[in-house]
């Protein structure tokens, strides 16, 4: 247990200090959201209707871009080999790394959501709904994305390949995240239904992600 908490603390510290780059995700999120009005026009009514979808897409892309860092730096300096060889089960170590990554790169996105909601003319309920669905949904993005990150690091290929592999897997999260936010704002469906499915998706990915990532690390690193 202490090994895992040490791993989490170390990862968060590395991510937040110089060269960590966890907060670049928030900057990217902000930039993508600012770009949207230029594409669809400054119509406030339209923006508030598209708002939840824009915020979700931005958060999805931001969390995808930061995923590259999940294993790469550790692989470069050799600490990933130590983690694979250590007595702590690799599945738990992967889960701990993903948790640390989510705390450092995922949570800031959710904290930034209310500010970005203001830019998109979202009212209080809508902003709260989007933030809540992001809180429930981004762990699923991180934990399924971790599979792609593990594959990419064993193949020494990152970037586009990672995106192509991970994005189709994140479609369910996107569907239910946006649906739950829309349901809270206007929708005919009650907020609870899509939101509980979103939570279920996060829980499933919590199980599948570490096992698949550990399997690909174990088979892929030599």
């Amino acid at each position, binding site marked *: 247990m202490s090994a895992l908490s040490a791993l989490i603390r170390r990862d968060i510290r590395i991510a937040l200090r110089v060269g960590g780059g966890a907060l670049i995700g928030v900057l990217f999120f902000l930039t993508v959201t600012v770009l949207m009005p230029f594409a669809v026009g400054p119509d406030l009514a339209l923006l508030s209707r598209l708002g939840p979808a824009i915020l979700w897409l931005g958060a999805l892309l931001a969390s995808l871009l930061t995923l590259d860092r999940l294993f790469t730096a550790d692989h470069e300096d050799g600490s990933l080999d130590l983690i694979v060889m250590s007595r702590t089960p690799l599945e738990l170590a992967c889960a701990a790394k993903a948790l640390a990554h989510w705390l450092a790169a995922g949570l800031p996105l959710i904290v930034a959501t209310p500010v970005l909601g203001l830019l998109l003319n979202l009212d209080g309920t809508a902003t709260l709904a989007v933030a809540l669905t992001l809180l429930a949904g981004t762990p699923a993005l991180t934990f399924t994305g971790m599979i792609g990150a593990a594959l990419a690091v064993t193949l020494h290929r990152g970037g586009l*390949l990672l995106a192509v592999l991970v994005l189709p897997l994140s479609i369910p999260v996107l569907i239910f995240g946006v649906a739950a936010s829309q349901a809270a704002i206007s929708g005919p469906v009650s907020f609870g239904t899509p939101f509980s499915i979103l939570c279920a998706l996060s829980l499933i990915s919590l199980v599948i992600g570490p096992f698949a990532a550990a399997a690909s690390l174990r088979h892929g690193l030599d």
Partner: protein
Amino acid sequence: MTLTDLANPTRFLALTTRILPWLAGATAILLAIGLYQSAMAPDDYQQGATVKIMFIHVPNAWLSMFVWGVMSIAALGTLVWRHPLADVAAKSAAPIGAAFTFLALVTGSLWGRPMWGTYWEWDARLTSVLILFLMYLGLMALWRAVEDPSRAARAAAVLTLVGAINIPIIKFSVDWWNTLHQPASVFRAGGPTLDKAFLWPLLVMAIAFSLLFITLHLAAMRNEILRRRVRSLQMMQASRTAVIGEAKEMGAA
């Protein structure tokens, strides 16, 4: 003859040399029968002659999912049983599966044009098949990203199994998304159950297409084995010329 006997690529090649002509012949005969029966099938009272697209479309759609199943079993073969031919099977199945999925999409949109009045409708089924197609392409990109086949095989196996778990979830989500966004009125409400005049040609075509897949898959596996042999021969030759070159340099010095 068990699966472990086939672990020897030479024995596999010998077996497929004997089987392939028969398989190809059976496929051709069944396809001919199926196409004749589909052409002779009566027109639908609602859809007219366009219903005949179904005889091509449905087998393709069925194979698009079946091939992923085959690849998942092959992925288990790679990761669990370490069967030497499993990754050959997985690698050569992916492009064929992608081709079937693509054909299902094309025939689906050609069928959709007269039925829905548009080539592309964000219909739940078409959308989930499109996502399946994207996943096939991603898998092929993964295979092509790495030179060492065995390294790529293990990564692709993990991705195939993750995909096998995720495909039903994606299918369910897309269904849910579609019912949320679109009223069901666009589509025929509970189309009539298939008449025997349609059922028989469809069954024959489904079997013919499955045989077509098996034939293509075995042929592609043969090619892949031979390609790997050529590759290792080339590597051996390259290292030999390198050694000889070094020796000559040593002699000159």
